[in-house]
């Protein structure tokens, strides 16, 4: 059943912040790929919504070695970026969904959605968001700790240092719309250090710090891959069993590191 919720259509980021944080707090409508069907099926109540399609929050720019991606940038545009962000965005949904879904919406979606949190965690991305108390910056974990996506909160953009190299591998799927059971992102920064993150290894995206430490200590890819299991918190769901996740994580960590050229 469709509600009669009013929808604002701001034409700038400032207008969008004002509209989202005004009372009663508004729900953000970006690409709509999750919110619209949930709303159609009566799974979510929306009192007031703000659509970002005209807020000019979809820019992607590079300056001084840092990439800044507007929260309303569609995944189709993000897919043109280098790995791991580009490869991950290309792996989400089919062409029509990628053209509509946004990076901000993906970050704000609960697991098993939210694939983009993996590569952004590996990159140490800095998120900028607004709420009734002002504008804040922090990592993926900081945004989640602040309460994450909810009415009254607007993710503005995501920034990260362009890595020296990046890689992304995911469990292949039979159909483009199937959810990804597991993915691993790896990044080698300008300092030569390698950071690794996974989705599907734990209930939410997680860094694989033990594997990173093995590499930093001069260990091999195989040793780092084996160590990654210590950072996982495997779980059962409809996509995969905990036992399967535990078994395949080292395989995908190994592939990501090989792709990275370690």
């Amino acid at each position, binding site marked *: 059943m469709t*509600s009669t919720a009013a929808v604002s259509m701001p034409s700038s980021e400032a207008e969008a912040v004002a509209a989202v944080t005004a009372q009663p707090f508004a729900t953000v409508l970006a690409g709509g790929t999750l919110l619209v069907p949930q709303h159609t099926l009566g799974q979510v109540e929306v009192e007031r919504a703000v659509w970002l399609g005209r807020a000019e929050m979809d820019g992607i720019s590079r300056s001084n070695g840092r990439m800044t991606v507007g929260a309303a940038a569609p995944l189709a545009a993000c897919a043109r970026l280098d790995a791991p962000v580009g490869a991950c965005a290309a792996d989400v949904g089919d*062409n029509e969904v990628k053209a509509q879904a946004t990076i901000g919406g993906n970050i704000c979606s609960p697991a098993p959605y939210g694939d983009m949190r993996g590569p952004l965690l590996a990159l140490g991305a800095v998120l900028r968001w607004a709420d009734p108390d002002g504008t804040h910056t922090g990592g993926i974990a900081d945004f989640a700790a602040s309460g994450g996506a909810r009415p009254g909160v607007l993710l503005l953009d995501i920034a990260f240092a362009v890595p020296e190299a990046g890689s992304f591998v995911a469990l292949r799927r039979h159909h483009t*719309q199937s959810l990804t059971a597991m993915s691993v992102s790896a990044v080698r920064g300008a300092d030569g250090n390698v950071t690794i993150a996974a989705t599907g290894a734990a209930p939410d995206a997680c860094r694989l710090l033990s594997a990173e430490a093995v590499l930093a200590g001069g260990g091999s890819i195989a040793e780092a891959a084996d160590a990654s299991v210590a950072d996982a918190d495997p779980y059962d769901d409809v996509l995969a069993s905990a036992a399967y996740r535990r078994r395949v994580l080292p395989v995908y960590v190994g592939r990501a590191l090989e792709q990275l050229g370690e």
Partner: protein
Amino acid sequence: MELTVNSVARTVQSPPLTSLLTVLREELDITSPKAGCESGGCGACTVLVDGQPRRSCLTAVCAVDGAEVTTVEGLGTPEDLSRVQQAFIHHYAAQCGFCTDGLIVAATAYVGGGGSDDTGDIGEALAGHYCRCTGYVKILEAVAAVARGDTFDTASTASSANNTYVTIAGAES
């Protein structure tokens, strides 16, 4: 909200968060977009928004205010079918027909954008569309034929060599 649907200006009364699929089917009585999964996963509700394929079940109608929406009804007429429609008939690319409308509009955008006749490219472009009859080979052949510039004689399709029915012994008894 004002939309142009199949070249006709329409004023929409539904609330702004209503899906475009619901508006098309229930307010405007345009029923070619199908409510398959209603979660963006099957492709049966695909329409063209300003020439680009979009899932109408994922699209709030407020997001297409002022846009031009094209469904399969707007691609051709029974007397003058579009080339993709002709190809689907000629190559027997429709079985139950539930996925056909979404595939035809997506294929129209693909060939309109200069897509090649390579079945790998076509498969990639149409990857979000489920055919529950699993008639994918005929669909790929039809789209490839349009991309190649083939001509279609749909009037003779019914008597063509393609139209060979196999009778299974005892099936009619």
